[in-house]
């Protein structure tokens, strides 16, 4: 598998086929005397900012800390993933993960309070 071509930036779905974001980052583990191993994929704005520029990532993390917002990306072990042609499927329940934290907050606090939503 070509990790960048086949996995990075692909849409990510949970076990109920719910969209939970995209593969924003890939974490490799390096151990001496062993080939690199794909450990996790990451979902989160901080990792996207890091990809644009390290400084931007740090700035985002500082701002998030100031407003007590968790900025670290959510990690999914690679073993829980199935990399398909169009999507990457994760064997998790998206609503119980930080990947949908903002979605659920907006649903509960903002959009859900509008009549007819």
């Amino acid at each position, binding site marked *: 598998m070509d990790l960048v071509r086949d996995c990075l*930036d692909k849409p990510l779905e949970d076990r109920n086929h719910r969209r939970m974001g995209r593969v924003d980052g890939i974490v490799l583990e390096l151990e001496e005397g062993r080939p690199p191993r794909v450990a996790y994929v990451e979902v989160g704005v901080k990792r*996207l900012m890091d990809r*644009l520029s390290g400084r931007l990532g740090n700035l985002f993390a500082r701002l998030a800390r100031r407003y007590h917002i968790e900025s670290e990306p959510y990690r999914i072990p690679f073993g829980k993933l199935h990399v398909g042609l169009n999507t990457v499927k994760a064997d998790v329940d998206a609503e119980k993960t930080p990947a949908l934290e903002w979605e659920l907050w907006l649903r509960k606090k903002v959009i859900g309070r509008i009549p007819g939503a």
Partner: protein
Amino acid sequence: MSFPTGLKPGVNETTFNAEMKKILEIALGIVTSVGGFLEIGSITTAAQAGADFSFQLIWAILLGGLCIIFLVEQAGRFSAVSGRTIPDAIRERFGFNYFALLYVVLGLVSLLVLAAEVGGVCIALELATGIGLLWWAVPVGFVIWLVIFKGTFGIIEKGVSVLGLVTLCFVVGAILINPPWSQVLRGAAPSLPQHNSVHYWFIAVSILGASISPYLYFFYSSGAIEDEWREGHVGINRIIAIGGMTFGSLISIAVLILAAMIFAPQGMKVEHYTQLPMLLEPVFGHKGFWLLVASLGIACLGAALEITLELAYLTAQGFGWNWSENQPPIAEARFSAAYTAIIILATLVALTGIDPLTLTIFSMALTAATLPVSIVPFLFLMNDSTYVRSYKNGWFSNAVVILIMALAFVLAIVAIPLQIFGGS
């Protein structure tokens, strides 16, 4: 209904129904494209072109129309075959950094165009009621939000576009005013200006910016997914793209003809929106005033709905959120929050009091200046068999995309200098 003997009626009926459904789908698609084609940008740029250079800039509308036919056809084909939208594939194929560039550039330009469309609806309401246009910005913003919040994709795509057919009054007007058709035909061929060449090229660039709007082909791509198009829609898509965009361009040409016949002989320039009703009044009398108000209001409202949705689609698709105008807002809270924020921002821009006509011309030139960012990916995506399988571009389509790309790069280089030196 009778069927030829010797054939199973059930089979024939199914074929007949399928054929009728296809024809209806094509007709509705073309009506949607025609009704949704005209907006403040195409009306203003065509009217300015006609007033300042008579029929001489018809070629620019035709060139823009030809470009948008190819881009819309390819966007529809891509989505029908791959089940993906263009922005979705751009993020995946070109990575986040390119997507971020596209998102920022297209987001800013589309926001300005959206503010101009909000301004267009406000102008129509001011003309109709006499109440100043700034008073209308918030109510118009609210109506746009309400239609998206409560409506479905079908209501927005087809409902508003069918109403938008009122813009065909420009075509009727252009025929009734009986222009010198030989001169109209001569305008279809590019020619050099006899006077004020910088302004001539600035208007030409603005017309191209108004015609080749990225929101049109990105929205069309998302619409193909919303309408659940499949591989079998490739043929229908081609007919809709060619038919819809051709007829749409004809309406823009009709606006130019009316301006050339009414404004140019008097040496009038289109400098203020209160002049717009004069496009139809000489032909239709006082009814012309109301036809202009209805055309402007509905066309700009339709465009504002499409641009708002397109920006929300772009955001949701790029970041992998749930998105669909056919889902209840609560099922996709981030998507709903995105279009709400977009409408608030555009309304705030409209509330600054910038003259909507100035904002329109500026945003059309800016659209032209940023075209390469959204057009370059087409060449790669439409030749990637992992997405479009056997429906890849042939040599002709690729040659046309390369020509459009070259045109986009030229526009990107000249648009801002022309804006500075020829914008007034």
